[in-house]
Each structure stands twice: as C-alpha cells, then as structure tokens.
C-alpha cells in the first residue's frame, strides 16, 4: 500500500487564494473542530489553559511580508495544510503502509490502526503538513474532510471541506484537478496557480493563487478630505484656554502623560 498509485481517477484538492485571504484563522478553528469530533483520533491539546498551550492542528495560517524593490511592503496571509501531493514522499517512507494515497480520488490518508508513530512521514513532508498527536501518538494530517465530501447525511452545501465551508472571504476552493473544466482547474489556469517548493518534486495537487498585482502605487495619494481635517487652532483660546491652563496648574497634573 505504501507504493504510490501511478495515477488516480480524480485529483481532489484545494485552491488557496493568497489575494483574498484575510488571515482570520476561521479555517484553522473549523478544521480543528470537525476533525476533533469526527474521523480518527481527536486532535488533542496539551496544557490548553496553562502557561504553554500546544496542540495538534491540520491547518495553520502563517503571515509573510513581501518587500518589493520599488513599491510599498505587502502583507500576505498564508494558510497551509496537506497539499495531497501526487508524488508524496510521506507515503513511500512509511514502513507499515499506514500512510497511503487513494486510487479513486488522490486523497492522502493515515490508517491510524497501523501507524506505529515513527514520525518518518512527517520528516519526509517538506510543508510541515503532518503532526504527531501527543495524546494518541499517531500521525495526524488533513483528510480533505473525506468524511464530509461524500457524506450524504449532510446537506449538499456542506459536502465540502470544513475550511472551505467556513472561509468568510471565499479564499478557499475545493474541486477535482483531474477535470480541466472544474472550478479549481479554471481558477488555477486563469490566476497562475502555483506549486510550493516545486524543486522538492512532490507535485502538490493543491495550488496557491498569487496576490494580484496592485493596479497602482497608493503611497503618494492625498485624500481630498485631508485639508478639512487639519487642526484649526494649535493653541486653545477663550474659556477652553483658561480651563486648560487652570487644570495644568493644579497639583498632581502631569505634563508627560504619566497617569
């Protein structure tokens, strides 16, 4: 089972739009929630209310700053979960066959009953997409919500991964990359969807849409309302001026803003 299928009927995966993601971490929470209550061992936390809380997560959102040569810096929120690689090194290193890639849809899963918790698959993954659960001592990873997407007990609109369903910005898209007419294939083609660390040769299925170029540099823009917002008088006069001075001279008042 640990050998990879030469091809899969479907290639299910995600498109993540770095242009629209606002870094709200809602997908992180909905992922943790769904995958704690459903498929496999729950995602445990250690010392959750103490000094050093840690825990297992299958989706995490980084934030990066890009500083172009001639333009203002840009902030990019960067969600990261398993990319369900076509040439998944995490699968071939597994000694037990617990890690496998499904022939029918390309989803990479862990059979937790067979996992000996050796950690080698997490070593082999370049993206940090696998985490050993510290409570159950088995390897956890994104299942692409395999227990939602085919689940006929759920209303039709919920049959997509929890992160996609939750994202308030519409930054996450789920579909079949093997079908050139699918939503994800079209998005990838139109927006120049890219692979992470292509030099690692993992052939990720998930694609990232790069931030759109800024149409113009706004750093020199002047708000037309700005002149009206200029302070009218720098020094208070009249009654306010007297009050200001009176308060200033009272004992206990500070000039340095100490209170």
């Amino acid at each position, binding site marked *: 089972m640990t050998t990879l299928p030469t091809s899969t009927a479907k290639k299910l995966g995600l498109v993540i739009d770095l242009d629209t993601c606002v870094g709200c971490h809602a997908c992180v929470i909905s992922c943790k929630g769904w995958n704690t209550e459903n498929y496999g061992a729950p995602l445990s936390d250690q010392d959750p209310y103490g000094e050093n809380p840690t825990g297992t997560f299958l989706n995490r959102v980084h934030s990066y700053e890009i500083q172009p040569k001639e333009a203002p810096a840009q902030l990019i929120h960067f969600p990261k979960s398993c990319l369900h690689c076509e040439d998944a090194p995490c699968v071939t290193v597994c000694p037990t*066959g617990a890690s496998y890639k499904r022939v029918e849809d390309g989803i990479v899963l862990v059979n937790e009953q067979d996992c000996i918790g050796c950690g080698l698959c997490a070593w082999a993954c370049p993206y940090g997409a696998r985490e050993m659960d510290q409570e159950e001592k088995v390897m956890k990873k994104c299942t692409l919500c395999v227990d939602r997407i085919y689940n006929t007990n759920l209303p039709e609109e919920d049959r997509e991964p929890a992160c996609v369903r939750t994202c308030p910005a519409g930054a996450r898209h789920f579909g079949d990359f093997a079908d050139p007419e699918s939503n994800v294939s079209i998005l990838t083609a139109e927006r120049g969807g890219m692979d992470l660390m292509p030099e690692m040769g993992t052939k990720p299925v998930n694609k990232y849409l790069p931030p759109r170029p800024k149409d113009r540099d706004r750093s020199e823009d002047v708000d037309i309302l700005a002149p009206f917002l200029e302070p009218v008088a720098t020094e208070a006069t009249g009654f306010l001026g007297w009050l200001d001075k009176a308060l200033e001279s009272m004992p206990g008042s500070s000039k340095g803003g100490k209170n």
Partner: protein
Amino acid sequence: MHPAPSVILFSTLSGLGFGLLAFLGFGMPSPTGFMAFIWFAIAYLLAVGGLIASTFHLGHPERALKAFKQWRSSWLSREGICAVAALLVMALYGFGAVFLGANWTLIGVVGAVLSIGTVFTTSMIYTQIKTVPRWHNWTTPVMFLSICIGGGALLSGQVSLATPLLILAGVAQIAHWIFGDKALVNSGTTLATATGLGARGDVRAFEPPHTGTNYLLKEFVYVIARKHALKLRIIAIVLMVVLPVLLLITHSHILAAFAVLSHLVGVFAARWLFFAEAEHVVGLYYGKR
C-alpha cells in the same frame, strides 16, 4: 532536527555491534567455544541493545511488527528486515562456533554482508529524506558505513586494519560536515520557493501561525550555536579517531579497551551533531533558517 537520545543511542551502539558481527562473520577473529560465546555476546548486546533503544521513540512500539511489511518502498522497513536476517544468520554461525567448534565460512560471510547491509539501510533512511539537504547526499551512507567498519575492526582487535579504517572513517565524517554545511544553500530551497512569493520581492516571516510552540518546531527546528558545533566536532573527531589510533600504537590490551570506549563516545557526539545540525526545510516557513 531534534536529537532524540534513543535514536542516537541506536545508531551508535547498533553500528558498532553490526560492525563487530561483520568481522566475526568474515572470520576475523574466528574464536570457538567459550571465547566465541564472549565475542558474540558483546556483539549481540550492542546490536540488539541499540535496536531496543530505537523502539523507545515509537509512539506505538507494540505495533512494531507491522513495520516489516513495506520493504518495497520504505528504507525503514528494509532496515528492520535486514537487521532480523543478519541477527538470525549470525546466530546460526555463532551457534556453530560456540557449541560445535565449527566455522561455517559461507554462513559467516552471508551474515557479515547482511550486518553491513543493515547499517547501509539505516543510513539510507536519512539519505532519502530530501527535506533535510544535509543528509540527502552520498556522504551520509559513506560516513555511516566507514564508521561501522572502522569501529568493527577496532572492537574485533584487528589492529593493523583498524588504524587505516578509522582514519578513513574520520575523513568520511569530515566530508559529511563540509558537504553538509553548504547543502541547504545548494538545494535552492528558500522562503521564496517555499511561499512561491519570491518573484515579488523579499519575503520575510511576519507573524507565526501560533504563539506557542508545536510538534513541528520541536521536532524539526533545533538550532545549535555554530561556536558550540565547531567545538563538538573537534571533540567528536578526537575521541572517535585520533585518540583510538594513538592508543593502538601502544599495543596494550588495557589501552585498547580505552580506545573502544573513546571511539564509542566520539561516535555518540558525532551522531548528536548529525541530528542537531540537520536543517529541515519546514523551518523556512517559520523564518528560522
């Protein structure tokens, strides 16, 4: 990479144990009777002791038998099979030597090849890991094998062989460090390729995904100060190669025992560095490399 004591102990002890088994299998020396019992007991204590230590880092050691299944693709699985095969064949050879006073050459040679093969499969577990460029090159198996054979020669008392083999092991270890120091840069993997954003400007990790630590940071992002690393490298080479070679010149049995001890401690230090200095590319996502 996190330098887990169980894994370091395993590769140090088992490496030496299988090295000794290989020399015994090749008939260097070829003891019989009680002497053979002593030799094989030492070799098995080291090899099996190391293997047992290695199970301590498993989350579910009770399922370890499942790990023999995937030899077609997994080096870890191949290592398990090779180790068991080597131990079984050498047990047969040892049985002949201890109880029948026989030296079954063919069985010995097969056992020796399997013993060295086991150390090779161990080294390939690390070499195959592309995400750790420091490991992912030919110096890793050469270093593991030469240290196993050098240590085996030393422990089996092959004085004339041990000196050149230990020097060779030292050269291989230093080559591994020299190649390794440039490996991450040469791999071409950077935060720019990790995020795919490099063409737009300089990419900097701005905010991590979590305020505390996690499994990834603990397991993969171990940062050791360069200054300490250099000192430890010198200590490792001196204990592993220089001191044993000098002690061997004396031809004294007591000092030879010290040579083995010094070698063992030196290899342990070098293996600690093997993990502690290894940079996993996932650290790039955290701006830690």
